[in-house]
């Protein structure tokens, strides 16, 4: 028994003298959500385009469910929903017709089509626009149609290239909800994103690339553990200004606090040993000091910390 899978083997893509993807070996198998991270120009979109046969490798190969994409794109993409680089739908079609076209090309049975098309439109909150021509839609609305088109056949595998591009904050939250709902339905999702909180929120694993090379591919838990072994920093915000005396005598002497930085009159950054228990104890202690604590949060997420350190090391 094997679940859905995505794999790149020694994947290399050059554009003239520029190497966009450099010997990338990545294997993702099972039902999970993998965040595909990297700075601008790292090779994320190029990799996803290679995976979906939009562009062709200079060397190496891509496999979906074990099927080589270059040799048989039709079979390889059969169980995939793909959203890459905010595509455009034929402007004279309505969202319903666009999804009908996708359903037709995928040979969805009429009953399933009647059920899935309205469901997909509802999932991206485009039901009321279903019969309007796509040509006049905003970028965000078009992106919602693209997401619906990727979902209409209830795919086993989803390849999403920055799916929240062009969406307003509500749209971004809806994309996260869609991804969470797909996870509950046992799907394999590979999603590139620049938004680290989004990745932290929905992904089980992260793969980080820079300059076309894979820096690491780990579970989010492993990333958190790695970060926490080096100690943590939290930002505390108070309702009123905290005096220097309070910082030195009351906050700085709390158990576990190794250093206190003042960010401004009402905000402090506290350094403490690794571990969530340490953070919990500190929160409790700060609350009883009666300094007007109003918020307490990690100054950088574990993912952000690891992301920045790995990218800096690579540079």
């Amino acid at each position, binding site marked *: 028994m094997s679940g859905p899978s995505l794999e790149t083997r020694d994947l290399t893509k050059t554009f003239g003298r520029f190497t966009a993807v450099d010997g990338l070996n990545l294997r993702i198998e099972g039902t999970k959500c993998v965040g595909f991270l990297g700075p601008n120009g790292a090779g994320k979109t190029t990799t996803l385009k290679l995976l979906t046969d939009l562009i062709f490798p200079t060397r190496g190969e891509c496999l979906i469910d074990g099927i080589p994409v270059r040799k048989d794109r*039709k079979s390889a993409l*059969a169980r995939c929903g793909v959203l890459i680089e905010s595509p455009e*739908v034929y402007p004279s079609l309505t969202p319903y017709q666009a999804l009908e076209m996708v359903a037709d090309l995928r*040979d969805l049975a009429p009953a399933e089509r009647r059920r899935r098309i309205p469901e997909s439109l509802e999932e991206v909150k485009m039901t009321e626009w279903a019969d309007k021509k796509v040509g006049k839609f905003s970028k965000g609305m078009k992106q919602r149609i693209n997401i619906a088109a990727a979902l209409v056949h209830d795919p086993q595998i989803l390849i999403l290239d920055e799916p929240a591009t062009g969406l307003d904050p509500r749209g971004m939250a809806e994309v996260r909800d869609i991804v969470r709902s797909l996870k509950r339905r046992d799907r394999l999702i590979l999603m590139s994103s620049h938004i680290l909180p989004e990745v932290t929120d929905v992904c089980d694993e992260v793969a980080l690339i820079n300059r076309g090379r894979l820096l690491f591919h780990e579970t989010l838990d492993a990333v958190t553990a790695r970060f926490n072994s080096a100690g943590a920093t939290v930002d505390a915000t108070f309702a009123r200004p905290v005096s220097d005396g309070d910082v030195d005598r009351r906050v700085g002497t709390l158990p576990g606090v190794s250093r206190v930085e003042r960010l401004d009159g009402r905000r402090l950054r506290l350094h403490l040993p690794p571990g969530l228990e340490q953070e919990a104890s500190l929160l409790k202690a700060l609350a009883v000091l009666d300094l007007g604590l109003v918020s307490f949060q990690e100054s950088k997420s574990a993912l952000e910390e690891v992301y920045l350190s790995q990218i800096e090391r690579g540079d």
Partner: protein
Amino acid sequence: MATATPTDSGPAPGRADLGLPSSAVQSVRLARYQFRDYLNSRRFILMLAIVAALGAIFTALVGYFRPAALLSTPDTFYGALWANGVPIVIVFAGVIFGGDAIAGEFQNRTGYFLMGLPVRRAAVYAGKYLAALAAALISVLAFAAILIGNGVFYFGIDALPLAFLASLLLAIAYLLALLGATFLFSSLFKTSTYAVLVVAVLFIFGFGILQSVVTGLVKIEPWFLISYASPVIGYPFASSLPAHVTVMRAASGAVVDTLYAPTYLEGIGIMLGYFLLTAVGGLALFEREEFS
């Protein structure tokens, strides 16, 4: 590296279980949506306007001047108006529907939508070709309807010659070839404007000029030019076919000019050859084009 997690989602299906339609079926289905897109587009209205304008000019000229030679028989009428008018309609239809058919997929980014689906590139190419062919065919039939309307006015309802059917089939063959060629040129570009411009200049002026240069200056038969095949469309109406080669001499006996007219076989061969070669060439180009 993360460890792969076993899942309960079942094995990946075998290729036979993927439940996709054949590529031929996908082409036809894609063509249906493309055709719908053409019907709703301004370019279709533009094409119909060109057909209407051409039909109106022909109707007005014949109606005003009533040329006796032209109106002597249905064959001379259709042989002059249809055989000379339909290649113009076909060239415009080719430019308007085929000029940016492939290039537009790159520039308008609709290709990213289509190529994320499990379809072979050949199916996309064929589907787009079929849609353009259907839209162009409607234009040709609209032009035919205008001329038949005129023919019925002058000769009565029973006077439509059987030769018209043969000529229509030849016109469709010419359309197949010319559209194939526009698709080939469209596959060379990723920018609609360049593609349409090149195709328009080439097909509206380029081939005509080239044919004049080849016959007038190089003095060879232009069997390799698609435009050379178009007179064959009028042959079914002719009582006798033109000489294949006509050598014009001065009184001294020196050759002044040589005129070429394609034979039936040559004309049909050129159309067929263009259709096959441009289909293979255009598809080969599209197969290698990257959506980068």
